[in-house]
């Protein structure tokens, strides 16, 4: 599920595992902020949270998450359908990392 060419695979397995923990925790928080911002139609809040999650996801090699976050940086793409895609992608990713 993760792109094997991502930077996360250039660090030791022990460190990688600790970074995955950090990523999952932070991603969950970012998704919460994106959800709240999408419902409130707070475009700037959604853009900021999406930008942050995009960078972390790219570092992890979570390509689907990265692509969805890139879309959600655009106010025109900030909607409940895109949010659902993001949450589904995250759940799939979590399962693959479990």
């Amino acid at each position, binding site marked *: 599920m993760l792109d094997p060419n991502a*930077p*996360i695979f250039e*660090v030791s397995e022990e460190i990688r595992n600790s*970074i995955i923990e950090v*990523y999952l925790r932070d991603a969950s928080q970012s998704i919460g902020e994106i959800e709240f911002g999408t419902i409130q139609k707070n475009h700037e809040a959604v853009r900021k949270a999406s930008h942050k999650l995009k960078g*972390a996801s790219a570092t992890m090699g979570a390509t689907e998450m990265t692509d969805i976050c890139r879309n959600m940086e655009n106010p025109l793409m900030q909607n409940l359908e895109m949010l659902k895609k993001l949450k589904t992608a995250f759940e799939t990713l979590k399962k693959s990392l479990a």
Partner: protein
Amino acid sequence: MHCLIVDDDNTSRKVIESFVEQTDDLDLAGSFENPQEALQFLKKNPVDVILVDIEMPEMNGFDMVDSLQGNPSVIFITGKEKYAVEAFDKNAIDYLVKPVKYDRFINALEKVQLPDAVGDAKFIFVKSGSVLVKLDIYDIDYVESIGDYIGVHVGGKRYVVHTTMKEAEQKLPNDQFCRIHRSFIINFGRINQIEENTVSVVEKVLPISRTYRKNLMKRMNTF
């Protein structure tokens, strides 16, 4: 070389920390989520290079660089390409777009130029026992790190001095001396032979680290 990382994204920051950890001759002086805290730290702990994100909630990377005291090298690490022009206007030595791969990270660090503070000095005094010995700088074969000390090797003799490799590197003229490893600085004039990962200086074989090899080879006069 001492570096500082500033990035509000924990995942990216931890990966860069790990890259620093696995790089010879690079020490992590600090790693911060918040640029304001990084600036406070830098007031008392100057570094050679700062690796800084641009879009951060507390303060953006450009504003942080504008607030810097001293003149550390700056490498921006960010998720967007659109800031590149402004980054180089801020005299960044490089601009990395996330996700940052280790090779690209090393390539950026190779552009860091440490200060050359030697001036016109031809001699250097080293303490040997209770006396100060005057050495012609160009007679020095190589310098090695020995914990909190350095060993200055001159014609088969070793003078042990309580100082750092960084300070030694600054005091030796960079047209004649070159750092080849976290633990070694060599005199170009004393090189006999260079192999893949080692260099023979006088009769001693010394390691060349990956970080410094490119710089060494660039400075050699080769066919």
